[in-house]
C-alpha cells in the first residue's frame, strides 16, 4: 500500500440503534485489505466504543480513519460538553451515563479505558463546552 486510504464518517447523535455502523464499515474495509485479524479487532472495538460514547454523551460527531502501511489512525471529534475530569473518566467503572443507557447495555464506565486498552497510542483533547477529540492509532503487525 503506497498511499494511505482515508475514510470519513458522520455519527448521528439521535439514533442509538445506528451507533456502530461506521465501525462495522471500517472492519469490513480492513478485512478486504487483508489486515491481520488482531489489528482489525482492536480498531473495531476502540472505534465502536468511541461511536457509542459520541451518541451517549455528545450528540454525535465525526470520525476520520486513515489506513497507512504500518498503522490505522482514527480521529474521533465531537462538539459535546467536554470531559470535566479526564483521569476520572479513564478509570474503569466510572461513568456519567444515565440509567437508560445502562439498560441498553452500556454505561459501565469501560468506554474510554477500553479504547486505550485496544489502541497503541491514545490522546484526548477536551474542553468544557467545546467538545472532545480523541486520537488513536493501532499498529499493523
Amino acid at each position, binding site marked *: 500500500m503506497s498511499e494511505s486510504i482515508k475514510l470519513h464518517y458522520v455519527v448521528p447523535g439521535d439514533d442509538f440503534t445506528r*451507533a456502530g455502523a461506521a465501525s462495522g464499515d471500517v472492519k469490513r474495509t480492513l478485512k478486504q485489505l487483508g489486515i491481520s485479524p488482531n489489528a482489525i*479487532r482492536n480498531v473495531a472495538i476502540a472505534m465502536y466504543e468511541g461511536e457509542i460514547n459520541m451518541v451517549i454523551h455528545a450528540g454525535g460527531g465525526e470520525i476520520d480513519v486513515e489506513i497507512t502501511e504500518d498503522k490505522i489512525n482514527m480521529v474521533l471529534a465531537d462538539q459535546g460538553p467536554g470531559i470535566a475530569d479526564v483521569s476520572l473518566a479513564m478509570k*474503569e467503572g466510572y461513568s456519567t451515563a444515565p440509567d437508560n443507557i445502562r439498560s441498553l447495555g452500556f454505561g459501565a464506565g469501560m468506554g474510554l479505558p477500553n479504547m486505550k486498552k485496544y489502541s497503541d497510542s491514545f490522546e484526548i483533547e477536551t474542553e468544557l463546552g467545546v467538545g472532545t477529540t480523541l486520537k488513536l492509532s493501532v499498529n499493523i503487525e
Partner: protein
Amino acid sequence: MTVNDIKEILQAEIICRDDLMDRAVNSACGSDMMSDVLAFVKEQAVLLTGLVNPQVVRTAEMMDMHCIVFVRGKRPTLDMIEMAEDRDMVMLCTELEMFTSCGRLYEKGLRGGSGK
C-alpha cells in the same frame, strides 16, 4: 463443541442461520453489559445475553462471534435478526436463565474467553 451442541444443551430454538450450526466454538461470554463483553474477553465465539437491542449484534460483530444465545425467553427483534443474517451469525433462544445456561455449557466443557 459446535453451535448445534449448544442448541441441544440449552434446548434452544434456532432463530436464524441454521446453515451454520456445524461451526466449532471453543469459548463463550455471558453478560447483559456490552461494555464488559468488549473489555474482558478475547477469542470468544458465543455471546449469551438477556439484552435485546441492535447493539448486541454490533458487539458480537466487533468481537468476531459466531453465535448469540438469548436467555430467559428473550427474543430478538426483526431488525436484529436481519443484521445477524448479514453477518453470518446464528441466533438461538432458550427459556433457561443466564446462570443455568452458562452452568450447563461449562459443565460440557465450554470455557470463558480468557481461559479462566
